[in-house]
């Protein structure tokens, strides 16, 4: 087996465990965080702080490198545009997130836990991505959008 498949698998596994430990995989806790006007549970702000504290130095060190430790081409986002798709897409995503309490990672983890409602959400989410894919052809490298 290729080493990069194993490392991607391990990264996914650790990511999933992090979602479970943090409480982000629990929609009720996510919605309690998003409910500023209710009795607010600030926990999830600390998830972002913990993740970024690790991410900052590593992304800093990775900057400008061409190859990863395993010799893979580094593929970092190149777009710096702050445009309409970014804003509208972010808003649509946020509405969905606020309705169900699921963003993509936790939905996959909760699907892995066998939660029927998570499976339904995930199927709808993948359908949404499929709809975007169909509307967005011909694609430009998977991140394309209408000009």
């Amino acid at each position: 087996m290729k080493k990069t498949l194993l490392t991607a698998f391990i990264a996914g596994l650790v990511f999933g465990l992090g979602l479970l430990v943090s409480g982000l995989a629990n929609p009720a806790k996510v919605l309690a965080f998003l409910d500023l006007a209710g009795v607010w549970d600030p926990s999830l702000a600390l998830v972002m702080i913990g993740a970024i504290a690790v991410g900052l130095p590593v992304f800093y060190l990775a900057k400008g490198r061409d190859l990863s430790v395993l010799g893979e081409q580094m593929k970092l986002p190149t777009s710096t545009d702050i445009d309409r798709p970014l804003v509208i897409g972010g808003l649509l995503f946020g509405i969905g997130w606020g309705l169900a309490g699921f963003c993509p990672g936790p939905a996959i983890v909760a699907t892995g836990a066998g939660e029927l409602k998570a499976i339904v959400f995930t199927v709808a989410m993948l359908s949404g991505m499929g709809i975007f894919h169909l509307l967005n052809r011909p694609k430009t490298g998977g991140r394309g959008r209408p000009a």
Partner: protein
Amino acid sequence: MTIDWNAFTPISALAGGVLIGVASALLLALNGRIAGISGILGGLIDRTAGETGWRLAFILGLLIGPALWLLFATLPAIEIRADYPVLVAAGLLVGIGTRYGSGCTSGHGVCGLSRLSPRSLVATLMFMGAGFATVFVVRHLLGA
């Protein structure tokens, strides 16, 4: 604003965040890729040549996480109160929105902010703002 101190779990939130950061760092340092879940899923749907294997492996890891956890302890609560029509609408919005906006909580939120990307900061402010506003409307205006 009233803080729910009983529900506040700072240690597990920080620890889980560190694990998420470590996972993103591993994927970046070893595979040279961004751990953005919507990008990984969307890439599988788009079938970008040469990028399918690692994406499937990563998603498999996410899916197997709970089973691995169950070998050592009972799973933490996963409480989903939304009913099915709401879940379907929310799922569609999350799917379309994350692809149109090129990222989600992980790609823009964790990785983008770690890269100090202004683009990701704007995206994060948009989805956080919309999330806060949506919960406010649903819970406090509609009273659901």
